[in-house]
């Protein structure tokens, strides 16, 4: 329990410290805002069109593949921790599991999901 309480202390200090620094900076710095200063900075050119647009779909595809593999890893960690108590059966199981995932990765690769265009 003590271990998790320490994490709580870290979270608390970790939020308070940077927040205090930002507030300190806000107190010390000058406050002379004007519309030109507060406009969007894109290399001195005025911004054209809407910024929050539909984005390149490739990022979404990568995120999807990431989710699959991340969940895989979550399943593999308990296996790794208990491995030296489980014996040969666990190895075969994990091989089958990893094999299916590798097959999935190569399917995605063949389908062109990993290509950047």
């Amino acid at each position, binding site marked *: 329990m003590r271990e998790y309480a320490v994490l709580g202390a870290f*979270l608390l200090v*970790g939020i308070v*410290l940077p927040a205090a620094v930002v507030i300190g900076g806000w107190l010390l710095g000058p406050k002379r805002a004007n519309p030109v200063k507060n406009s969007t*900075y894109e290399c001195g050119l005025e911004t054209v069109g809407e910024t929050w647009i539909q984005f390149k779909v490739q990022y979404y595809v990568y*995120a999807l593949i990431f989710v699959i593999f991340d969940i895989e890893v979550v399943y593999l960690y308990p296996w790794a921790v208990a491995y030296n108590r489980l014996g040969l059966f666990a190895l075969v199981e994990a091989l089958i599991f990893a094999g299916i995932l590798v097959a999935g990765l190569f399917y995605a690769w063949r389908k062109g999901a990993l290509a950047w265009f």
Partner: protein
Amino acid sequence: MQQLDRLFILIGDWFHSLLAQWLPEPVVSAIGMLLSALIIMTIAAVTMLYMTYLERKVVARIQDRIGPNRVGPFGLLQPLADGIKMFTKEMIVPTQAHKVVYNIAPVLAVTPAMMAFAVIPFGRDMVASDLDIGLLYLIAVSSVTEIAIVMGGWASRNKYSLLGGMRAAAQMLSYEIPMVLVLLSLVLMVGSLRLSDFVDVQTVPFILLQPFAFIVFLISAAAEVARSPFDIPEAESELIAGYHTEYGGMRFALFQMAEFVAALGMACIMVTLFLGGWRSWIIPLPSWLWFVIKTFILINVWFWFRGTFPRLRIDQLQALAWKFLVPASLLHAIMTAVLVTFFPLVKDGQLVVQGAEWLTTTVVYFVANVVLLFVLMLLYRPYVRRTVRQLRVATPAAAARQQEVQAA
């Protein structure tokens, strides 16, 4: 020596007994936790300040320059001057920006980077929280930073920032997989997620047992904290500064801090997992001093990367992660699983390798790693050759040359 090794623990105990005279026990332990968090974070912040100085000096030397040398002797006060400058800058919020998210993002970027230090053993018995799922906690915490970066990039409502934030997300997501998979092989060897167990087992540092894992982790960790050559999220020559273009003053400093502290945290993790943590090598120095020395060496390796490698393009970056590192690290984990059945290091929580057995075990693991590397190189040779051929044709100059050859 013994006293020096336990210096910080003795100071802590003394302070604890001092407070216990006036205050009840729960309050004292609460104060102790908060103070340990505060001290570790302050040390991390000061180290981060001097990392910026060191980086500028090292990169300057690599590029045959001198680097900062005006403020104080050898420019040693430069980071402080930078800090004061950041503090007194005006804090601008762009009119277009999403105010709430824009303000939260820099704070949220620093918090997880700092929280990673909670479970790292800095010396013998010097760990704030010896969590039994320490490694899993580290992985979880280190991936929160990318949310903050996407938030910063999106909330700025600037096209460069958005692009930088999206790139950062794609890159950090992709490199998290090989990083975590390669740690799996270490977990297989140790059979625990507690970081102090990793240090206890490493009579021979794991960098010698699993050099391939170390290289993969070094690459993925560099990508995970967006250090060059994987710094496309903030590539200054194409994206101005990426996700922190619209940030100024202290908020910008916090993003910068998050990046450096995350790099420092990654170096600490690598020291703990691969270089034997606080264990001393040959020369008997206090355990925490050895930890500092090893971390310093690894940080310099990253600065060396920065000075020598060109930046990767995003398609190359993703190809490296998904087409090479993920299958390779999965293969490595399976190889380690097979090795562990025949050459176990730990059985039922007890270290079973002793004395001269370490030599055979190290040699077996090392050779297996080298063999795996060669097998992978052989497997990927046709793919690499094909890609190189395509790249040659793709450049306009090469295409023109080929046409000339065909015409003649």
